[in-house]
């Protein structure tokens, strides 16, 4: 008891208050000493504010009868509530565009997401350094081909009169050849596989970087335990890059409904419209070219809301299942 009382006496409240122990004080002291490091995030912050946050006020256009030159907030603004959304949802093709977008993106994701992981794991297991580097360059070179050139190549190969068309005729297939660019069924495979061919090597880089961080001693220990190469991929490599995979998956899910319109537009023909008209091409043709900026923005906003919803769901699920998440 006496000991305790002694301690209590030495502890005066005044002394406590003088010491810079509150979080705020600590932060201030820390900032004084190392605050300049924060300057490094300044360019990124400015970029995000200028290009991501400031333009966001444009969302208001979705609730207006807007045309360029109008003030977005001002006396001349014509507010029309949710009319643009109603116009968009009442489009008889709305569900078709929605399904097309969803299928194109989800199928692209199912094929495109695991591919770089597999490639990275395989590349990582290649023994010869030279072969590994060579393959890596070979895989990511297509990434640098521009979209227009890529679609040009696709047309040379798969359009009527193209290589595949000619080959199928010569090989005694359908006398009329394979007009893949006119076929709604061929659009998705062409789009997805060409996109993955172009990007699987590039996307594998981030996994390769994660794999290079795997402690070699883990592999050695596994080897001693008699693990095969295949076993080591599953038991050492894959768990090591799991957080990266989860992170990238959440990010991809957040972009699941945005396939981009440029390549789709370039590949669109009157024949494949049944599958190639998606929300973003609708926003482009109806909103930008047709001058219906309000409806276009409403459609774009609808797409973004779905993306945010998917992002939150993916994050929540991943946290529940694996404990990894972004926020």
């Amino acid at each position, binding site marked *: 008891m006496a000991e305790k009382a002694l301690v209590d006496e030495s502890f005066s409240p005044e002394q406590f208050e003088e010491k810079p122990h509150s979080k705020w004080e600590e932060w201030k002291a820390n900032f004084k000493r190392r605050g300049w490091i924060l300057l490094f995030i*300044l360019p990124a912050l400015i970029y995000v504010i200028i290009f991501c946050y400031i333009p966001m006020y444009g969302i208001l256009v979705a609730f207006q009868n807007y045309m*360029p030159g109008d003030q977005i907030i001002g006396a001349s603004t014509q507010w029309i509530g949710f009319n643009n959304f109603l*116009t968009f949802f009442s489009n*008889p093709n709305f569900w078709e565009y929605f399904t097309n977008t969803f299928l194109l993106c989800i199928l692209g994701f199912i094929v495109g997401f695991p591919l770089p992981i597999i490639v990275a794991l395989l590349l990582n297991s290649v023994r010869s350094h030279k072969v590994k580097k060579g393959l890596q360059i070979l895989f990511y070179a297509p990434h640098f081909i521009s979209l227009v050139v890529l679609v040009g190549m696709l047309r040379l190969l798969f359009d*009527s009169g193209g290589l595949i068309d000619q080959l199928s005729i010569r090989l005694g297939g359908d006398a009329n050849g394979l*007009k893949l660019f006119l076929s709604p069924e061929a659009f998705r495979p062409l789009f997805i596989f060409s996109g993955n061919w172009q990007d699987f090597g590039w996307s594998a880089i981030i996994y390769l970087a994660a794999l290079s961080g795997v402690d070699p001693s883990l592999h050695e220990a596994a080897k001693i335990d008699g693990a095969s190469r295949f076993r080591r991929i599953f038991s050492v490599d894959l768990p090591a890059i799991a957080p990266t995979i989860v992170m990238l998956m959440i990010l991809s899910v957040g972009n699941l409904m945005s396939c981009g319109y440029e390549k789709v537009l370039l590949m669109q023909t*009157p*024949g494949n419209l049944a599958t190639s*008209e998606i929300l973003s091409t609708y926003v482009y043709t109806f909103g930008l070219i047709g001058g219906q900026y309000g409806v276009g923005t409403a459609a774009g906003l609808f797409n973004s809301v779905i993306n945010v919803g998917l992002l939150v769901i993916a994050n929540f699920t991943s946290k529940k299942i694996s404990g990894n998440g972004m926020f």
Partner: protein
Amino acid sequence: MKKLIIGISVALVWLVASAAFAVLGTNQNTSGDGFVVLTVKEDSVKDYNTMPVFKDLANETGIDVKWIYNTSAQYSNNTDPVGIKGIDAIYHSGFSNLKLYDYGRRGRIVAIDQYLSSMPNFKKILDERKDILEALKSPDGHIYSLPRVEEMGLKAYPNILYLNKKWVKKLIDENKLPAGLTLTEADLKDGLDLSRNEFKGILQQFYANDMDGDGSTSNEVPLSFVTGNWQGNEADLIASFGLPENREHKTIIEDKVTFTFTDEKWFNAVRELATWFNSKLIKATSYTQGDNDFLAKGQDGRYGSFYWWEKNTVLSKELRDDYVIVLPLRNDDDIDPETGKGRRYVGVSNEQEIEKGECVILETCQDKEGLLSYFDKFFEPIYSAQLNYGSIKSGAFLPEKVNGKLIPNDDHGNQSADDFRMKNAPYGVVYLTEKVWEESVEMESRAKQRLEDLKNYVKPYSYENAKAIPNLNYTQDELVTLNVYESSLSNNVKSWYVTSVTNGGIPSKESWQNFLNTNKGSIEKVLEINQAAYDRYLAATQDK
């Protein structure tokens, strides 16, 4: 540390400064007297400021106009051309009905009808021609743009079928004409009379044989067209099944706005086209190519037959005599008991001879009366003709009139008539009507030739009671509804049609009926709005 801060500050200053310059850079220099008019033209077209016709206009009116220009690519990238600083008007604005109305009711472009007192020519036109007045009115009753009126009667029938007579002659010589068809060399002249099945038989021979004699049978194109193009499309081939088809599948029959694709004859035509496609008589390129690709291929003589509105632009000089005009194909399923032969039909296109949106005046213009009185001169025949074909002083017309009429000069040295016109004619706001052609301006010889061809080989077979849809005047609600339903419907029709023809099978009746059922709502809405607008048009143009 200091260096880092300096570095970042310099980068920031540079960013802000370049953004500021970019904003300032879009402002044009507006100093000086006179008007500045933005026009949309390609680099290959001569500078309007040096064109004699504009110099004459300046001398006559005493009004000084400085022309600045955007190429069509630059112009289409500008989402708000009306917002360009320092210009008074936009020539070749190309604004749609909705855009004119949207700009007009925001007070950003001028309601021209309020200045008719300074525009005697335009006022006279509107007084005389109720159809033009109706066509130009926006939903609020105002006129926001100056029109282009070029009435030659050429646009209604934009497809003529041409056949390679050299190839047919080869078939005759080699005894390879399809069974049942007898043709002699003497028959191979303009106005060749064929039924659809006979024509198909000829195309089959074109496909099966090495017609151009290069040792290969694979590069011949039996029949070519550009689907959905305003000219040279396959509408008349479909029309041969007995319906007034045009590229929009929309026409007026006995004052009723009608869709052709809801007619069973249209479905039968699609089935037949699919068999033509499957037998390679029509290549897939007809459904994917643009007009440039189409024209390029015509130059090497690979076409057995093609649809276009004339043959000279399609064929190189040495090939032009090898092709003859085929009369609209006879319908083998609809035999006229009197002649014992199939009947012939062609549809009427909806291409307008009255185009709105050619020129708009901006609200910021300081002297609207002045500028409009200048543009009013464009409607006089002497200026309309020069704007449409090139200045007299640059050699588009002969220097002297004959019987009070301007006579076009056909001799342009090494240049083709098309090239000369492309470089020298500003086009745009003109008023060239039947009366003008009769009294003041002689038509170009090639236009006369085309009219003659149409008169002899196409017009007599026009579907009875079918009319083109005129420029209709919609209310704002109708415009908005049409915008949604018509664009999606036309997408769906295009998609069903092209897929059905090109997917290698033959479309079933069930698939066509499903397609109609799915689009029933849109079809009804679009027809209802168009019918209402057309009824109003009839009331407005007939009463007065």
